[in-house]
């Protein structure tokens, strides 16, 4: 109960605080530079230059404290030893270069990067095209979109059940083993089956991200001028040719945005691996490796930070490209 009151109180303070800030700061600005009197024109122009900063100010402040500062601090920490007491220069990075687990994580991340965005975008595109054509398409769409509403941890738990293992011959409660056994196979511990277990983890993220890809691509497909498709029909194109030669090229920009957005999500993947295998059996990924070094056993802030920086450097170029693409799409 106390917790509830606290939550409500926080919300109230937050919202009222925002309102007070915007009203108060603008009031002060108008008091200093009144939009009337002999200098009204000049005052309005000057106030117009200051006003955006009043609105941006709080956001910039919080982003600075909670985003920019941690990044800089991480870089700093990555140059120190595990307890941050001694400057070690590039030692942590040198260690990364020869660490087997780090190499495994890099390779795994690379395959995640290759497979998940490709499959999610492909399935999303197929789902978008097919659901647009049928009467119950909207129902199908909401079904495919639903995994988006499930947290990665929740999805991990659900799929853990799908991959669940029981002694061969007994009743399999895991969906995959149940199907496998009914087809005559022997029950497998799928999540320890190297290297395929990586793929079984990736499927979870594909399952989640397909809905996202479908929604965005469906909107893009609908945005294609109908006449270009009719012109292609008159030109004698088959439905396949219309899809691949007329429709897909027209939404390439959107496909790129979807692809890169999923790529960024994939690079940061942590929860699914954490819940399902915790990086064992050759499924380690960078984010989980970072967590291991940072918070497990005796924390090593230096190595953990170094991994975090590597991860950030990997995401950065894709991020920039993605933002550029989104801007281009919006124009």
């Amino acid at each position, binding site marked *: 109960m106390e917790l509830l009151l606290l939550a409500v109180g926080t919300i109230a303070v937050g919202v009222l605080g925002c309102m007070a800030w915007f009203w108060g700061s603008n009031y002060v600005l108008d008091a200093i530079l009144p939009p009337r009197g002999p200098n009204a024109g000049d005052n309005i122009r000057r106030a117009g230059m200051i006003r955006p900063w009043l609105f941006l100010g709080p956001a910039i402040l919080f982003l600075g404290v909670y985003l920019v500062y941690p990044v800089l601090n991480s870089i700093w920490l990555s140059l120190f030893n595990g307890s941050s007491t001694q400057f070690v220069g590039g030692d942590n990075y040198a260690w990364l270069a020869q660490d087997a687990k780090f190499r495994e994580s890099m390779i795994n991340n690379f395959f995640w990067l290759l497979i998940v965005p490709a499959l999610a975008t492909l399935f999303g595109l197929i789902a978008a095209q097919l659901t647009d054509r049928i009467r119950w398409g909207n129902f199908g769409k909401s079904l495919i979109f639903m995994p988006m509403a499930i947290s990665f941890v929740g999805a991990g738990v659900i799929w853990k059940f799908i991959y669940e293992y029981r002694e061969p011959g007994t009743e399999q409660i895991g969906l995959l083993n149940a199907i496998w056994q009914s087809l005559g196979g022997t029950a497998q511990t799928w999540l320890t089956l190297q290297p395929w277990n990586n793929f079984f983890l990736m499927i979870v993220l594909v399952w989640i991200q397909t809905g996202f890809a479908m929604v965005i691509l469906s909107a893009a497909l609908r945005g294609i001028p109908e006449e270009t498709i*009719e*012109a292609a029909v*008159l*030109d*004698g194109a088959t439905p396949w040719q219309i899809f691949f030669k*007329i429709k897909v090229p027209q939404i390439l920009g959107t496909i790129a945005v979807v692809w890169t957005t999923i790529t960024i999500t994939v690079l940061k993947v942590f929860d699914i691996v954490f819940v399902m295998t915790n990086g064992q059996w050759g499924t380690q990924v960078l984010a989980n490796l970072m967590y291991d070094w940072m918070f497990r056993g005796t924390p090593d802030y230096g190595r953990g930070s170094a991994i975090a920086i590597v991860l950030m450097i990997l995401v950065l170029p894709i991020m920039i490209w993605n933002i550029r693409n989104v801007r281009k799409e919006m124009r």
Partner: protein
Amino acid sequence: MADLNLNNVAKSYGEVNVLRGINLDIKSGEFIVFVGPSGCGKSTLLRMIAGLERITGGDFHIDGVRMNDIPPSQRGIAMVFQSYALYPHMTVRDNMAFALKIAGKSADEIKTATDRAGKMLQLTPYLDRLPKALSGGQRQRVAIGRAIVRDPKVYLFDEPLSNLDAALRVATRIEIAQLKESMPDRTMIYVTHDQTEAMTLADRIVVLAGGGIAQVGAPLELYERPINEFVAQFIGSPAMNLLPGKVVATGERTQVQLDGGGVCEVAIPTRAGDEGMVVNLGVRPEDMRITDGPALFEGKVDLTEALGEVTLLYFGTAGEGDPVTAKLPGIHTGLNRQTVRLTADPEAMHLFHDGQSLLYRDGPPTTPMRWTQATPDPVVLTDVIAPPPVR
């Protein structure tokens, strides 16, 4: 060679009938224009010919082959869309080549065809550009080029000039006319709501109204001998004036007593017994002239519009009586708020009874093509003296 034949063609979306009873023969090499008010179904009819809309009733033949169920690409037609419908990700050349590539033509053949179309349409310098780097007029030329390379028997144009500005519209209109000149054996069907385009381009105009064909005929035939009040007012700008009156004397020439006061003679024959028939006298604004003698119409000018070339006089815009417009050649000043007497030649007048022209009482107009009028609503006769109108 492509004769088109529409036999009792109809289109309905569920319960809603959009088009019905469309009967039309189009001869090979004709330039046909569909005109009509918004929502009359002219674009739908064109799309049915193209195969983009299903024909829900009747038969459609090209050269004697029933086309109802033939896919669009095999009908030997090409279509130019209002919005150009260019493939935005392909260069001008690829846009024009797409149909040929789909058809599996050789690279040489494709290059020859696109080069030729590019030259015809003065697009040669732009062949490697994307559509977005072209002006509106150039884009429409590419769309026409895309049709040309396929060398279809029938060209369909769906309001191709509507997205162009006024100057470009005139220029492109002339280009389309020249294109037709250069391909005398190709049939063209053109949809527009612009009567200037219809009058200048068409061999024959098909006026569509209320889901059917109101009249088919050569442009000047429609202008001079409209079959009903709708066509009379739709063709010509400003619209034809309709002055209510009664027939007072019949014969080779008919005398009409107008409700507005004047008596006039019209060069349209009426039968004995037509005396007392309630009619509308139709006079085009451009046929009106100022007179001191007996007047067809007398009124106070509410508004004048001086265009230099002509002066438009508006009467009755304030609401008393039917508005009347006169279009006088040249410049006339000082007529505003003046009372003016107007007359016209008996040969330039039209007579309508119950909305139908008295010219066609003895049957459909003598056009070389078979056609029927598609307004099957029964006409309710209120005037006992009047004989039933003959369709």
